[in-house]
């Protein structure tokens, strides 16, 4: 039985340290943006969240490939947790992006920010993942179809990003360009530390949820063996793999 809790403490510690350092850098080290002022600080939160969320969705697709190739349902659970976590980070990214847009341009939503727009589309797609799982009763089929969806949607993410990017022809302060020539060195450092911090947080929460789910699954199995099939309460409204 794989123990997902192993290494969780080290990972958590690493996350806390990195995020704290990132916050210090954001508020005390990174220079004030000449154009957007203090508001630009949201950039260090919003962009890493968006990037890690998109990576999480692609990771979900990759883990789903593992499921379809091995047939072992644990991969499906890994894929489910990856997508679930990416969805949470994505919503946080969308909200922070919206707040940034309001503070920056005075509107709660802007169409001329391609990252934000393609992000909305990706979230709309992955929001159907759980309803899809929930509407298939047979657990084996549910896992298989969810994996097919995860792979298709994972392939969709980069393609969607490219298409939306090209569709937005507006000249506009592309503060959301990564690295490149736009960011001065100190900002770039702060950005990368923030990125690593959010990535570590994602990994920590992924492991955390895997540990909890694994523990629950093993407990149910134990209960089933000890007290028979009827003693195990059905999970009810759960789209998650059990």
């Amino acid at each position: 039985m794989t123990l997902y809790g192993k290494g969780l403490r080290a990972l958590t510690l690493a996350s806390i340290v990195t995020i704290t350092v990132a916050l210090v850098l954001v508020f005390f080290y990174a220079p004030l943006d000449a154009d957007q002022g203090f508001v630009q600080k949201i950039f260090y939160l919003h962009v890493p969240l968006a990037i890690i969320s998109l990576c999480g969705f692609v990771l979900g697709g990759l883990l789903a490939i593992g499921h379809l190739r091995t047939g072992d349902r644990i991969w499906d659970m890994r894929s489910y947790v990856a997508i679930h976590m990416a969805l949470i980070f994505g919503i946080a990214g969308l909200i922070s992006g919206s707040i940034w847009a309001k503070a920056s341009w005075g509107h709660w939503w802007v169409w001329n920010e391609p990252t934000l727009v393609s992000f909305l589309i990706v979230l709309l797609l992955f929001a159907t993942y759980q309803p899809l799982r929930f509407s298939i009763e047979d657990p084996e089929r549910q896992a298989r179809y969810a994996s097919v969806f995860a792979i298709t949607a994972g392939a969709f993410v980069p393609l969607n990003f490219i298409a939306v990017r090209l569709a937005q022809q507006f000249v506009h302060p592309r503060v959301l360009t990564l690295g490149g020539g736009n960011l001065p060195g100190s900002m770039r450092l702060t950005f990368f530390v923030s990125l690593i911090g959010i990535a570590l947080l994602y990994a920590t929460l992924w492991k955390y949820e895997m540990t909890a789910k694994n523990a629950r699954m093993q407990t149910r199995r134990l209960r089933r063996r000890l007290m028979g099939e009827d003693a195990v309460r059905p999970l009810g409204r759960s789209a998650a793999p059990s």
Partner: protein
Amino acid sequence: MRTALAVLRKDLRLELRTFETVPAMALFSLTTFVIFHFGLNRASIEGQLAAGVLTVTLLFAAMLGAGRLFVAEREQGGFDAFLLAPVDRNAMLVAKAAAMFIFLAVLELVAVPAFALLLLRPALWPRLLGLMAVLALADLGLAVIGTLVSAIAIHTRARDLIGPIVGLPLLIPALIATARAAGPVLQAHTSGSPPGKWVAILALYDCVFGLVAYAVFDFLLEE
């Protein structure tokens, strides 16, 4: 290959006998054009707006039609029969996608002239070739995604809902590329050739999802 042709022939024959899918899609498109006329409050449109209206209408008509693709298989045990036969399972993907493509092509034979008649301001004839090229690529993407999503949805409880809500976001890049490619085509006073950039993106979309669908379809058919 032969299996795919056999399944395709069966589907086409079924459609010719029952006229279930394509006339409904055509009627839906015509009604949608009328709705757009009132919704936009315009007598005629051109350029990007026209491209948008046409693309969106085709998109929704395709979602409607795709929902019917696997119903016969599901209700009459066609899946089991297919699985028992010693054939390449991807033949069903090819056959269904081809059927969907043909349905869309027939639909456009009706819908595009109707669109030109009802809403389009510039003359259609000089622009037809450019528009057809764009629509052909678009139909390919719609067929692939429609088949994939329909195959996923057919085994779920809320199959009429799951199909569109999963399919529409997946089709957004195709929609973007189609609308942006068709925009300059439908513009008055232009040569009527679609911009290469967007045609390339549409082709890329078709390739990527064609390959993805081909890779995963097998897993949808297992019992």
